[in-house]
């Protein structure tokens, strides 16, 4: 009897295995497609995890990752004890949250506007113009911003002066600088971020809109009661994913735009790591900060996912 049971279990396993093999064979093109990103993630994301141990070591290149001496949490302590730690953390979170609060609603609004637009030509023009800045580097963007915002002859300041106001040095004024960062990021990335929401909007059943129109719902009511609830799961997913990178406030952008006058509101964790970690050959310190950011982000993602599941019954996993 026992032997019979074992044989049955083995047969069941074989059946499952052959079913899996058949499934893979049937959808081989999809699996092949998935293989490329999987290889990417294994090589560039999983393999380097091994090197994360230098966060706990006094890393010496000639001794290598394994040979360097363990120093416990010294690298983390150096980061946490930095003179500017709280200022760095505050600025980083300020920009991350600010970008989330400004860019996300703007992206959703843009997506809805494009979706609702009934003139195909206008829609295409707006879409293209909105995507375009995403492809510009921050070096180019800096040049554009300088032309627009320079205190001497920037377009914005010319307008201010025309109406009798005083010019503002947007790029070196501590009050204005954060807004420049937030809105220039929104301008650059809004169009690109809207793609995912446009895709979600495309998936809404058109009959819902038709029924609503028959019932006399106006445009705003259709957006409020059909569009937004329909794309809510996508919004939640995007929000949760963004929380995972909450301590990535946009190194390239800040690095190009900041200057000593605005360090107090511009210096973020990544720019500090660049100066203190990478340029000073403190790779252990840089790795420790990276690890800290990753763990912090993961905790936020798990927490946000849990909250989302409780409140909206929609979650990432």
């Amino acid at each position, binding site marked *: 009897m026992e032997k019979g049971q074992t044989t049955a279990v083995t047969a069941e396993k074989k059946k499952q295995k052959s079913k899996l093999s058949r499934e893979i064979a049937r959808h081989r093109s999809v699996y092949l497609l998935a293989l490329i990103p999987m290889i990417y993630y294994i090589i560039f994301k999983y*393999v380097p995890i091994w090197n994360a141990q230098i966060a706990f070591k006094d890393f010496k*290149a000639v001794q290598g990752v394994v040979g360097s001496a363990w120093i416990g949490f010294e690298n983390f302590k150096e980061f946490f004890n*930095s003179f500017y730690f709280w200022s760095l953390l505050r600025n980083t979170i300020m920009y991350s949250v600010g970008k989330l609060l400004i860019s996300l609603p703007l992206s959703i609004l843009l997506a809805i506007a494009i979706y609702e637009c009934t003139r195909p030509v206008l829609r295409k023009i707006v879409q293209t113009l909105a995507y375009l800045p995403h492809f510009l580097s921050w070096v180019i963007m800096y040049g554009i911003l300088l032309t627009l915002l320079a*205190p001497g002859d920037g377009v914005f300041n010319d307008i201010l002066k025309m109406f009798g106001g005083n010019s503002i040095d947007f790029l070196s004024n501590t009050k204005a600088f954060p807004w420049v960062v937030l809105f220039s990021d929104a301008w650059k990335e809004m169009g690109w971020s809207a793609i995912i929401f446009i895709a979600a909007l495309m998936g809404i059943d058109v009959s819902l809109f038709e029924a609503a129109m028959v019932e006399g719902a106006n445009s705003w009511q259709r957006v409020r009661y059909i569009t937004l609830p329909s794309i809510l799961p996508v919004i939640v997913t995007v929000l949760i994913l963004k929380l995972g990178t909450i301590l990535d406030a946009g190194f390239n952008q800040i690095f190009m735009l900041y200057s000593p006058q605005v360090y107090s509101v511009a210096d973020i964790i990544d720019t500090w790591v660049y100066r203190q970690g990478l340029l000073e050959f403190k790779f252990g310190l840089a790795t420790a900060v990276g690890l800290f950011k990753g763990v912090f982000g993961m905790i936020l993602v798990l927490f946000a996912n849990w909250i989302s599941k409780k409140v909206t019954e929609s979650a990432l996993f």
Partner: protein
Amino acid sequence: MKAKRIIAVFLIALMAIPMFASGSSEAKATAAGTPEDPVTIELWFGAAITEAGMIPDDWVGYEIIRNELGIDLKLSMLPSSESDQDMRIQATGAGNALPDIFMVRRPVLVNLVNQGLVAQVDDCFEKMPNRTALIYDDDAIRNATIDGHVYGFASPGAIAKNEGLLIRKDWLDNLGLEIPTTTDELLEVLRAFTFDDPDGNGLNDTYGYGAFVETDATLKGYPGSRLWPIMGAFGVEGLWCFDAPNQGLSIYKPEFYDFMVFLKGMCDEGIIDPNWLSYKKDDFRAAWKQGRFGVMYEQNAAYAAEANYAPFDSNFPDGEWVIIDAITGPDGHASIGAYDMNYRIYAVSQRAADAGKLDKICELLEWMSSDEGYYLLGWGQEGVNYVFDENGVPVAGDLGDNAYTGSKGQVYTQLRNLVFYNSDVELTSRYPTYTCAVSGKEMSALVALREMQSKKWTNAVGSSTLPTPSADVQRFYDQSLAEFLSGAKELTPENWAAFIDQFNKIGGEAWNAEGVAAMEADGLVRE
């Protein structure tokens, strides 16, 4: 279960790959070093013309070096920006994969030496007698010396004292003003340039002084060298002061506060281009060519070389910049700026030394300074990329695009900084006299250079060997001064004292003490 176990083992094995890739690789020179079996030498160099391309694969130098030296030379061009260079070198160093010989800035060299990644080259100079006589004098060797050992080959970089204070002579003439000699006169001129329409176009579109923030961690402390002529009037030009009894950081001198008050006054009056805090180098250079300001501190070639002067000449055929003397301050100080000897250091990786390549590298460098190497790397092939004029100076002649100055020919001179040592022949060749296309004026960046060098400068030789601050101290220094200038922090004696006090606490005092100790150890303090 079995499949999951296999996947888990596979992933762990993949993660362990770096263990075998780092820290243990040692290249061995097994080649004979003959044309048939050459030793491979990998050289990362700083390009002479950053905007031009890489040396082509058909460069005749590869063949000559292989046939004459038994070296298979592999070249790689470093990024043009210093911070990108630093990043590339240090990231490669972190993987213990530095090339055999590479250009490196001294602060980065110190990091690499601390990591044991760079070879000592104390004994190499006697193997390169010709090159050492031409290039490696005592100052150069000292520049690459760390803790008593030489860790690189330092060759002359940018020419010292190659910048000057310039003023728009045509604007002065339009307004009936004289060249300023004191800070008070300078202020009057700057006010007139800002408010009295010096270009006569009827628009309020000019400023007195133009600048941008150009700093580094060893010589050009914030607000940077573009303000040096004004700092010089207060005796605080240069990050470090080498004169006893004030040796140490210039920020500690009481006159630094006076300079800050003066500069803040210029900012408040609006007589310095308000964009100066936002400009990058290219923005600043575009601005003076557009006639935006009338006084500036600029480098000789950036001002007077043909390609650089042409836009200004085209915009303002009647415009004229003149190089003026240092401005004298209230206490009689005057200086155009602080100068250090500039060097480009080429270091040899410990891996290359362990692989027995050091002798071959010395052989290669010595060949570069031979007549054959010097002209080939400096100007290309005779008759193809250059010809000699009647004075024996290489010139472009009528070789067109293939000339060393032409778009096709210039890429063959990308290695010239490895052989140039600012000789008269090089300078005459690099900065020829020319006639401006629109105004017909005769210009020469070499004449400008000689005039700039003749002005009063402050000796700060040795600055580049002094310690650099931590990132936090550097930020505090820069940020605090910037906030005083922008008005974010009120510039009063009390606030200044509080700034100095806090600066000392977070590490400034230790940085200063370390710097003074290094100065004294190297005999740099002047009595």
